[in-house]
């Protein structure tokens, strides 16, 4: 870094303290002076003067490099000022309002909530989101709002955060990026809600927000745009207003800051400037023409900027246009108006972008506003003149109502925290502290060296635990993933463990060491997870290593300003010119401040280099079984209802196409061509040689043929109610579907209720019910025919994903059928004994899953590549995909609920590096037809001591990886082999630890504390449906459980394997989480053993899983308010007692983190989940340990 700073200083940047400078423009520099004039008071509202002022700023920067930093500062300062002024002057009332909402506790940030969640869920997610913000180490780019707005705030927050919240980096769910990712398909709707909420908030703080809101290309709907703005922007003001929100620190800091601020501002005349004539700001621009429009302003800017459009979109929603405008345009060469237009279009396409209006249009409409928008980077809605703003905002406010308000408030706090740090910084001018965000390699290694003295955590992780003696192994709270033992700077930016997790958070230096440890090395990935915040970057060139094509990431080393060293292959690359410019700070020469280098999870909007054909539209084909069996089960009606409900929420854009195909012994197509009065059914009875009766009218544009689709969905259930056809020609139907879809690619959703009996792909029943519980090996775990596999490969080649819903009461050979999803990256859902009357639990689950399924985000024609540091190599993948190359997975569809696992080996010694990095890059086409690349980077230390390896072992990840390996083994070899292998894994670990690490000659089973739950988890694994023997398990259910193991994300899996058991009747507020205005009690985890249950208690078991029961209650005896609950009740009565409220708060909190909802429960399943107890055939935990010990002594 020192080198860096020096360079900068030489360049004349010195004042800014280059390192940070980008992020936090130092207020200290007296930027104010220059700018004050620039800012007109009216500014926020997009008053013309302000806009001009902004534009001018860039101009200033451009001419004189030295000044540039100042200008940046000024900008930030200005923003601040605006905010302050607003608050202070205009919005006192607002403040009052805001504070209350803010009260929500920041600290308890729930893990990422699924965006896609049902609409109802929307409010909570937003909350969560906000809450999380405080955690985030790097608020930076964050606020959904534009880059711009954040710029000023962001840097400081990030830096300060550490002090405020030391743990932030590792924070459980906290997404690093402040920016809101685009919501999943359903999310879009949510997004809207968010924005709305924001907007609501805006009205209150209007003026400030307006000013600050940089980005906002959302604009299409005026209200949304405002909302968009607010997030980034609004943050500041609300935060200030609501001291309560953050820890006391934050609030106090704020106040102090404010004062300072105000003082400084006034001193600097900033106020004056504000109050001053807006035009003056315009005048201030030396270079730029008075006209506020961005386009005009452009050229004055430094040459390098002109060509480049950096779109940093804070929100995914934020359009590139906004980015461009905010960054380059404002600062330097404003992109031409045309460019802005393009951006706008993109924006519109963007899922998030609710705004329709393009910045360009706005510009034309009102010059002033335009300039404002462009400058801000947010495209403000057309009618942005101040007066208009008020009006505009008002409507949204009303329409959205209070709920939105709340969310907005919540946001406030988060923003508040961020803002506060910045304030502090400013006031203090403690720049230097921050100045070294990204240490050089040498620094890193030094930092690591500093850690060599074993930290406390490690000591704890290494404490030998004698399993035979310690009976309480469970931590009081659900297990947190271990933190990689890297320097705090790296911790802050490291990838969230929910997205990217390694079984060993300390990578052994050599394969020999790894072998010695007897632990598997692998990664668990959840790459397309719904993220609350995600920095989205639009830029002409995506910076990648020239030899290994790694995307630039926070863990690269900048040798100097012009060169960076790849952290995977160690090649030295040039920093492209464009990259030198940092749109966040609008400064030049700070490549390490770019969002790509500040966030380990980023998303790029890919340029046309990444596509050979235009991105495909969202295309959905539904293949429905309408045989007699299906009609009996009665799923069709519920499917149609659900689809009708969610028709508008299907992820997609104007080009979205849908089609339907039904089959029994024949195949029925539906002509939905626009213009028909009603849907036409075309029957093809030649199933041996399927042909498509009509090519262009079967897959129709959803928007154009919506009425016909609705007609069809309404009439479909009736159409087949009298059918007597019992055969099922699934194979031919799939072939037809393939033909139908192959020109475009897309998603095929198959509903099947029985064994396919006709045509290609017909199957025979292979299950012998009498053998279900036999211990002598389970047969038929593999497919009976390769028809489905071949079909899946064909589909994969045409970018078609096949998802299977199997609703059968009898054996349907899932082992064969699942192949169609397995190799085309689809997902499998299975509802054993589904019947709409007799099995309401399954029905409810089906409905919920379906809703989530239809509305969740989706990515098309995706590929995922996983790269790792030289010396490591990936050798086996687990999950649903097609392996196209040794490090490339082909995913026809990618959905937010699927996860992947990877096994690795160490080929070369890693001795020459202290860090090992992994990068997963997912290239996909969004449902809006945009090519995007989501990049996750994980950085882990390399160690050469066995004890360090054990200290960093992640027992949950290891369990999941082993489960995946065991599934593979049971299919390729046999179930008993797989079970033996699992037991051996425990034996190996214990004996390896005994012989290598622990010096104590203790008898008994000694394991490091980090792995103390390992035997328990393995035992639990052995009792899972997928791997158990002895108990009667239907083949389909077993196979389905295996599929689940392969595709579920870790958190889900662990809950499935080892559910969390809580006692509910003695909940107290002790140690409770404070979320928003609710208090979430945190009961202790209990061991899964019947001895922990008692007759007079109420217990909750959280098996959080799609396929199994999720909540189980036991309540006996009187004295509890929910005594009336019987064991099979899944709904809790809402009583007004404190205990009831606590329970519900806790349940809501649990549920917030799930994609799929839960269903009812049964007593039998509860006992089945008590994995520590003995069952008829499986041993108890004690016995298992004894068994292990025997094995060891052999």
């Amino acid at each position, binding site marked *: 870094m020192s080198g860096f700073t020096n360079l900068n200083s030489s360049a004349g940047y010195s004042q800014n303290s280059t390192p940070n400078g980008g992020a936090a423009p130092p207020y200290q520099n007296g930027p104010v002076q220059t700018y004050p004039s620039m800012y007109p008071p009216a500014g926020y509202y997009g008053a013309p003067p302000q806009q001009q002022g902004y534009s001018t700023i860039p101009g200033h920067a451009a001419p004189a490099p030295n000044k540039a930093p100042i200008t940046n500062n000024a900008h930030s300062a200005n923003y601040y000022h605006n905010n302050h002024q607003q608050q202070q002057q205009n919005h006192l009332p607002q403040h009052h309002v805001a504070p209350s909402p803010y009260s929500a506790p920041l600290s308890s940030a729930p893990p990422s909530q699924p965006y896609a969640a049902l609409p109802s869920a929307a409010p909570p997610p937003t909350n969560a989101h906000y809450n999380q913000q405080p955690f985030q180490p790097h608020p930076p780019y964050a606020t959904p709002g534009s880059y711009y707005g954040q710029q000023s705030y962001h840097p400081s927050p990030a830096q300060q955060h550490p002090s405020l919240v030391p743990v932030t980096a590792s924070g459980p769910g906290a997404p690093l990026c402040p920016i809101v990712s685009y919501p999943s398909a359903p999310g879009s709707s949510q997004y809207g809600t968010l924005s709305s909420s924001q907007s609501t908030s805006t009205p209150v703080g209007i003026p400030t927000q307006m000013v600050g809101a940089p980005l906002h290309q959302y604009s299409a709907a005026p209200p949304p745009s405002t909302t968009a703005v607010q997030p980034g922007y609004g943050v500041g003001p609300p935060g200030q207003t609501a001291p309560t929100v953050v820890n006391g620190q934050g609030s106090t800091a704020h106040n102090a800051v404010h004062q300072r601020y105000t003082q400084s501002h006034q001193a600097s005349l900033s106020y004056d400037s504000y109050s001053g004539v807006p035009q003056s700001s315009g005048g201030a621009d030396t270079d730029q023409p008075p006209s506020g429009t961005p386009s005009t302003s452009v050229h004055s800017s430094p040459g390098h900027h002109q060509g480049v459009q950096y779109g940093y979109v804070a929100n995914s929603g934020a359009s590139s246009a906004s980015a461009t405008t905010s960054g380059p345009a404002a600062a330097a060469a404003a992109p031409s108006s045309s460019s802005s237009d393009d951006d706008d279009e993109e924006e519109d396409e963007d899922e998030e972008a609710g705004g329709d209006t393009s910045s360009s249009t706005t510009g034309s409409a009102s010059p002033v506003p335009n300039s404002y928008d462009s400058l801000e980077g947010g495209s403000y809605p057309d009618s942005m003149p101040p007066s208009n703003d008020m009006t505009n905002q008002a409507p949204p406010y009303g329409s959205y109502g209070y709920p939105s308000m709340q969310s907005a408030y919540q946001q406030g706090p988060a923003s508040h925290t961020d803002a506060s740090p910045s304030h502090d910084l400013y006031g203090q001018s403690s720049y230097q502290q921050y100045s070294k965000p990204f240490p050089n390699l040498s620094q890193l290694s030094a930092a690591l060296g500093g850690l060599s003295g074993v930290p406390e955590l490690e000591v704890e992780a290494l404490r030998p635990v004698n399993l035979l003696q310690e009976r309480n192994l469970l931590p009081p709270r659900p297990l947190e993933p271990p933190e990689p033992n890297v320097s705090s700077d790296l911790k802050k930016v490291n990838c969230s463990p929910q997205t990217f997790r390694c079984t060993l958070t300390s990578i052994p230096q050599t394969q020999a060491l790894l072998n010695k440890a007897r632990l598997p090395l692998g990664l668990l990935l959840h790459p397309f997870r719904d993220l609350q915040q995600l920095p989205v970057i639009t830029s002409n060139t995506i910076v990648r290593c020239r030899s290994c094509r790694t995307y630039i990431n926070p863990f690269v080393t900048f040798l100097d300003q012009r060169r960076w060293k790849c952290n995977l292959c160690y090649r030295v690359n040039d920093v492209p010119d464009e990259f030198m410019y940092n749109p966040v700070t609008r400064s030049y020469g700070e490549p390490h401040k770019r969002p790509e280098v500040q966030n380990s999870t980023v998303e790029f909007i890919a340029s046309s280099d990444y596509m050979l054909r235009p991105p495909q539209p969202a295309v959905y084909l539904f293949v429905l079984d309408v045989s007699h069996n299906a009609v009996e089960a009665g799923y069709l009606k519920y499917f149609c209802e659900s689809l009708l409900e969610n028709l508008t929420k299907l992820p997609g854009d104007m080009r979205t196409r849908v089609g339907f195909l039904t089959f029994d012994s024949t195949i029925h197509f539906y002509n939905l061509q626009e213009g028909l009065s009603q849907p036409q059914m075309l029957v093809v009875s030649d199933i041996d040689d399927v042909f498509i009766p009509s090519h262009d009218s079967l897959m129709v544009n959803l928007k154009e043929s919506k009425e016909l689709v609705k007609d069809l969905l309404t009439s479909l259930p009736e159409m087949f109610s009298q059918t007597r056809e019992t055969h099922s020609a699934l194979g031919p139907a799939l072939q037809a579907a393939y033909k139908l879809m192959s020109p475009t*690619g897309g998603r095929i959703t198959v509903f099947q209720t029985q064994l396919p009996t006709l045509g290609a792909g017909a199957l025979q029943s292979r299950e012998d019910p009498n053998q279900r519980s036999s211990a002598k090996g389970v047969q038929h775990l*593999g497919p009976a025919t390769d028809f489905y596999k071949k079909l899946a*490969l064909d589909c994969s*080649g*045409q*970018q078609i994903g096949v998802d299977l819903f199997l609703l059968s009461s009898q054996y349907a050979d899932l082992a064969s059928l699942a192949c169609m999803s*397995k190799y085309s990256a689809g997902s499998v859902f299975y509802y054993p004994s589904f019947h709409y009357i007799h099995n309401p639990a399954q029905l409810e689950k089906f409905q919920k899953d379906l809703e989530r399924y239809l509305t969740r985000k989706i990515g098309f*024609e995706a590929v995922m590549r996983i790269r790792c540091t030289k010396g490591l190599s990936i050798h086996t993948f687990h999950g649903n995909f*097609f392996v196209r190359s040794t490090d*490339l997975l082909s995913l026809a569809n990618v959905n937010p609920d699927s996860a992947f696992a990877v096994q690795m080996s160490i080929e070369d010694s890693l001795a020459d590096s202290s860090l090992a990095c992994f990068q997963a890059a997912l290239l996909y086409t969004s449902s809006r037809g945009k090519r995007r690349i989501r990049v996750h980077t994980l950085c882990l230390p390399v160690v050469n001591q066995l004890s360090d390896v054990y200290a960093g072992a992640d027992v949950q990840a290891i369990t999941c990886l082993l489960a995946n390996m065991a599934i593979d083994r049971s299919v390729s070899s046999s179930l008993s082999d797989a079970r033996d292998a699992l037991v051996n894994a425990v034996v190996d670990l214990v004996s390896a630890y005994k012989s290598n690490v622990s010096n104590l000659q203790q008898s008994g089973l000694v394991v490091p504390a980090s792995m103390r739950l390992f035997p328990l988890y393995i035992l639990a694994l052995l009792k899972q449906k997928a791997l158990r023997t002895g108990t009667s398990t239907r083949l389909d259910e077993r196979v389905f459980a295996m599929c689940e193991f392969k595709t579920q994300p870790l958190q889900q899996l662990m809950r499935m394997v080892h559910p969390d058991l809580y006692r509910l009747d003695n909940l107290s507020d002790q140690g409770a989480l404070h979320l928003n205005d609710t208090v979430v009690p945190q009961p202790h985890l209990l061991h899964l053993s019947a001895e922990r249950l008692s007759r007079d208690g109420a217990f909750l078991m959280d098996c959080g899983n799609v396929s199994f029961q999720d909540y189980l209650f036991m309540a006996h005896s009187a004295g509890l308010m929910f005594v009336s609950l019987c064991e099979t009740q899944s709904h809790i009565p809402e009583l007004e007692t404190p205990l009831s409220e606590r329970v519900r708060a806790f349940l809501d909190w649990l549920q917030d983190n799930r994609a799929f909802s839960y269903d009812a429960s049964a007593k039998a399943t509860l006992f089945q989940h008590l994995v520590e107890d003995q069952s008829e055939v499986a041993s108890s935990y004690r016995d298992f340990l004894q068994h292990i010990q025997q094995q060891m002594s052999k």
Partner: protein
Amino acid sequence: MWRVLPSAVSTCYTGKSSHMSIIFQIIAFDELRTDFKNPIDQSNPTRARERILNIERICNLLRRLVVPEYSIHGLFCLMFMCAGEWVTLGLNIPLLFYHLWRFFHRPADGSEVMYDPVSVMNADILNYCQKESWCKLGFYLLSFFYYLYSMVYALVSF
């Protein structure tokens, strides 16, 4: 004279078919492994189809060669046995057993013998197959010269 026959035949066969088959295998695996052309291009949807077809095609070819290769080798062993070439037979027995194991101990998924297109690209499988074919190439090459020598020796001593 009859002693020369097996050597002669096996020389020819080892020289031609087995070598060809193994060399093809090596080339095939190499082709499977090297998919890098333009990395950007590789991520391209339109390339996917081509690539998957390619993998399937290669796997099909590989699979088609499995039975001929194994059966020819089995035939040699049979001939060596008939001819009483115990030493030679002893040298080939391990490979024979390996072939038998490989053929019958395949994945439970019965429809594919080996070289399953969906799993062959996993690096460990690919590595294994590649190593296997290099080893076999070495073995066949050595045995080719050994057979040649045996044949000449038999002819001379005859």
